[in-house]
């Protein structure tokens, strides 16, 4: 790692001030992506601003129609929250299958979505549920938040504070995970709100996206058989040592089918 100055601001305002005034600042949540990035020298910030002591970012608020999660809540805390398990089991299950126990004890919701890794799990939940991201400046609809590979709508001096997830009638997330890291080779989040169905895909493309033909088919008939004759185009899908575009395209359909089955059984 290159040298940097380390700060631990005690308020959101102070943290935002560092972002405005430091030469080349970088926020830190649990460091689970940031520290490896610095070790690989893919970033060389002048100042690291640790959000650990900023008040108000570690909260869970579960209401009947909405689950709100603070940006600094770890994946382990979301996974083990009895309130989240009861209100939105698909979200608790998603958080509980990110990486491994060590990573879940440090990695956070805010860090995951700000990073927008194409294979990350949380972006699928935000898009699948039509969530709203709250920041130090404004509210951003999830559909407008994830803009491109590792890119978001966040401004340079903007800090994610929490995310509101609407509680659906039915929902489930299924991923085909990489056996070492457990990142999603492909993950699909399906949610049904009355007559409205959302289908979010992560891992397959450069950025999480909604699969319109699936949403239409499932809106007409919310059952696994509604997807049976569907062909998913591999055009533009990711390719790596582990899986090519055609394989990923097929996984999109399989994971979506399993997610619909799981949602009908009560989610997970």
């Amino acid at each position: 790692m290159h040298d940097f100055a380390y700060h631990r601001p005690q308020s959101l305002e102070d943290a935002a001030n560092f972002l405005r005034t430091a030469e080349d600042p970088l926020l830190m949540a649990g460091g689970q992506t940031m520290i490896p990035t610095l070790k690989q020298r893919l970033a060389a910030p002048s100042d690291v601003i640790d959000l650990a002591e900023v008040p108000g970012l570690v909260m869970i608020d579960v209401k009947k129609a909405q689950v709100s999660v603070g940006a600094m809540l770890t994946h382990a805390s979301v996974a083990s929250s009895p309130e989240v398990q009861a209100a939105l089991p698909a979200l608790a299950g998603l958080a509980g299958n990110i990486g491994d126990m060590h990573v879940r004890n440090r990695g956070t919701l805010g860090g995951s979505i700000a990073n927008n890794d194409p294979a990350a799990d949380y972006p699928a939940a935000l898009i699948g549920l039509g969530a709203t991201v709250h920041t130090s400046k404004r509210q951003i609809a999830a559909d407008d938040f994830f803009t491109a590979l590792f890119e978001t709508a966040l401004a340079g001096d903007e800090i994610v504070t929490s995310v509101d997830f609407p509680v659906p009638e039915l929902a489930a997330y299924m991923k085909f995970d990489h056996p070492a890291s457990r990142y999603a080779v492909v993950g699909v989040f399906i949610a049904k709100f009355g007559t409205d169905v959302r289908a979010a895909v992560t891992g397959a493309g450069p950025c999480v996206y909604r699969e319109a033909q699936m949403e239409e088919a499932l809106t007409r008939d919310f059952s696994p058989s509604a997807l049976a004759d569907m062909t998913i185009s591999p055009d533009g899908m990711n390719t790596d040592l582990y899986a090519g575009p055609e394989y990923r395209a097929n996984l999109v359909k399989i994971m979506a089918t399993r997610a619909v089955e799981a949602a009908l059984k009560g989610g997970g």
Partner: protein
Amino acid sequence: MSKHHVTSTVNGEPVEFLCEPQETLLDILRDQLDLTGSKEGCSSGDCGACSVTIDGRLVCACLVLGAEAEGRKIETIENMAEGDTLHPLQQKFLEEAALQCGFCTPGFLVAAKSLLDRNDNPTETEVRYWLAGNLCRCTGYDKIVKSVMDVAAEMRGE
């Protein structure tokens, strides 16, 4: 850049150290505090050889900054045996040959202890889920998982 003066508790003892911002907790433990039981395998959070607990939570010390240890309670593999008496997990790993080269062993022991501290009756699935962040290139895991299950049963008096 300026060094940080950090005060924390390591294995029950108050500890003070000076650290550069870019030094990890693993660097501090190994290079300054002479606690070399925690190993550096991958340095990227994948292998778990550097497993320690911070305020009771299992983490990779290679992905924590030394400066973050301020005010925290850190426990490492060095705190597991009591004097010359091995912890039951350590004893069982020896008896069951749950190690070969031994590089992953401190990490597995710290992780397994943190599971048994919370749950003395885990299923095999729960043990494998909890230890998923610890990699072993030698044993094939079965003996490790069996050792943890056996110690849990002994702790329950079975």
